C-alpha cells in the first residue's frame, strides 16, 4: 500500500503531463491548465515549506547536539528570523504593517537583500578567479594529447574573445567564433544526444515504476 499508491500516482500524472502535448482539444487543454494553475502550484508552495523546514531542522539538531560549528547555526537562525519578519510584515516594497524606516535609514527587505546577500554571494564566486589563476599555474598541464588540444583551443578562445584578439589579427576573433560554431557544436551535440537518451530512460523508468529510489527518500 505504501508503495503501490505513489507508483500508481506517478504513472497517472505522468500520462496527464504527456497527453496535452499531442491532444490540443479544448477540454484537455483547459483541464491541463486548471490542474497546473490550481493544484500543482499549491503543492509546490508546501514543498517550499518542507525545504525550509529541513534546513532549519538540520541547524536546530546541530545546536542541540552541540555539533561542529554549532554557534554559527544560531547566527543562521537568528538572521533568518529577523529577515523573514521584516519581509513578511514589512511587505515586498517596505509599505507593510511593520515600519521599515527609522529616520533616513530604511531597512526594507529589498535593501537588506541588495546590501547583504548580493555582496556575500557575488564575492563568494569572485574567489574563484584567484583559485583559477593558481590552478592555471599549478595544475593545468598538457599531460596528454587531449589535454594539449584542450589548452590550445582554450588559448585561441581566450584571445579571440577579447578586443586584444581583434587587434592581433581580425582573423583571430572569427577563428574563435568558428571554433564555437562548428567543432564545439559537434562535440556538444554528440554529448547532448547521449544525455537526452539518458533523460528519456530515467523519465520512462520513473513513470513505469522501474526506478524506485525516489520512494526510499520518504522513509525516516
Amino acid at each position, binding site marked *: 500500500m505504501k508503495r503501490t499508491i505513489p507508483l500508481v500516482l506517478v504513472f497517472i500524472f505522468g500520462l496527464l503531463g504527456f497527453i496535452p*502535448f499531442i491532444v490540443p482539444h479544448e477540454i484537455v*487543454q*483547459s483541464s*491541463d*491548465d486548471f490542474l*497546473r*494553475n490550481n493544484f*500543482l*502550484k499549491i503543492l*509546490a*508552495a508546501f514543498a*517550499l515549506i518542507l525545504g525550509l523546514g529541513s534546513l532549519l531542522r538540520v541547524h536546530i539538531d546541530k545546536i542541540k547536539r552541540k555539533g561542529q560549528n554549532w554557534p554559527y547555526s544560531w547566527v543562521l537562525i537568528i538572521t533568518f528570523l529577523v529577515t523573514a519578519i521584516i519581509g513578511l510584515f514589512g*511587505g*515586498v*516594497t517596505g509599505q507593510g504593517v511593520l515600519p521599515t524606516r527609522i529616520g533616513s535609514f530604511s531597512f526594507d527587505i*529589498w535593501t537588506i*537583500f*541588495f546590501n547583504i*546577500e*548580493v*555582496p*556575500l*554571494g*557575488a564575492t*563568494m*564566486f569572485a574567489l574563484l*578567479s*584567484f583559485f*583559477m*589563476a*593558481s590552478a*592555471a*599555474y*599549478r*595544475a*593545468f*598541464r*598538457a*599531460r596528454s594529447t587531449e589535454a594539449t588540444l584542450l*589548452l590550445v583551443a582554450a*588559448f585561441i578562445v*581566450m*584571445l579571440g*574573445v*577579447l*578586443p*586584444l584578439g*581583434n587587434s592581433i589579427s581580425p582573423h583571430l*576573433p572569427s577563428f574563435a*567564433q568558428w571554433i*564555437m*560554431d562548428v567543432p*564545439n*557544436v559537434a562535440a*556538444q*551535440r554528440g554529448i*547532448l544526444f547521449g544525455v537526452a537518451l539518458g533523460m528519456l530512460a530515467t523519465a520512462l523508468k520513473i513513470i513505469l515504476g522501474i526506478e524506485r529510489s525516489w520512494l526510499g527518500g520518504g522513509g525516516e
Partner: protein
Amino acid sequence: MKFVDYLTKIDRRIIYVILLAVVVLPLLFPSALSVRVMPPVEKLFHAIDAIPEEKALIIDFDYDPQTLPELEPMGFAILRHAFSRRIKVLALSLYVQPLGLAQNALIQVTEEFNSTAQTNRDSVIYGRDYVFLGWQPPPLIPILGMGESIINVYRIDYYGNRTDTLPLLKEIKNYSDIALLVSISSGDPPKWWVEYAQNRFGLQVGAGVTAVSASEFYPFLQTGQFSGLAIGMKGAAEYEELVDNQLHVAGRRKASEALPSLTYAHLVMIAFIIIGNIGFFIKRRQK
C-alpha cells in the same frame, strides 16, 4: 637548475597579488577599448529590434548574486533597448533569488528614462509600458501556463497589484501576443523555454547566459531554436556597444569598462599556464 625550482615553486599568494594588480590597474586608469560585435549578439539585437508594436517582450531575469557581473549589464542594456524603442516589457523570474536583482534593474533603468522624459508619452509608466510579474514556482507553471493566459498564472504581480487591473495585461493575454522572450540566466532556464514554450506554443526565445555554460548553448543557436545568444561579460559589452551606437541611449556601460581588465587577466592566466607547463616538462625530462 635553481631557476627551474624557482619556476615551479611560486607561492600561491604571489599569484593572487599579480592577478589583483592586473585587474585593478586598468580600472584605475581606464582606456577606451573598441568592442567588435559578433553575429550571435547581433542576432539577439535584431530579434528584439524587430518586435512589432502590438506585441510585447518578456525578459526572464534568472541571474543571482553569484553571476551578477556577467548578466546584470545585459539586463540593463536590453531594458534600455526595449524602452527606447517603446517596446512593451513583461519582467519575471523562475526563481526567488533573482527577483531582487530584477527589481534593481527595472528601478534603475526606468529612473534613467523618466529623469530625462518631458512628456507623459515618452516616460516609462508601470502598468502601461512594463509590468513586473514576479515569481510563481515551480518553473513549469509559468512556462506552460502563459501559453493559455498570463493573468491566470500571475494573479498578482511582484508588488501585489491584481494583474487583471493592469492596462498592459488587457492587450497582452498569452504567448500569441509575445514576439520574443529573452532569458538572462546562469543555468538551464533558456533550454526550458525552448523545450516547453517553443515546442508547444512556438514562442521565439533569445538567451543571455554566463560564459561558463556558453558552449552548451551553441547547438541551440545553430538549429535556430535560439533567436540570438549573448555570452558573459563580453556579450554584455557587445550589446552595450549596439545600444550605444545604434540607439544613442546614454547609460553607464559597466561591462565595457571591465574589458581592459578582462584582457590583461586573460593574458596573465595564459602566461601562468605556459610557465607552469615549462616547469612541468623540464622536471619530467630530468626524471
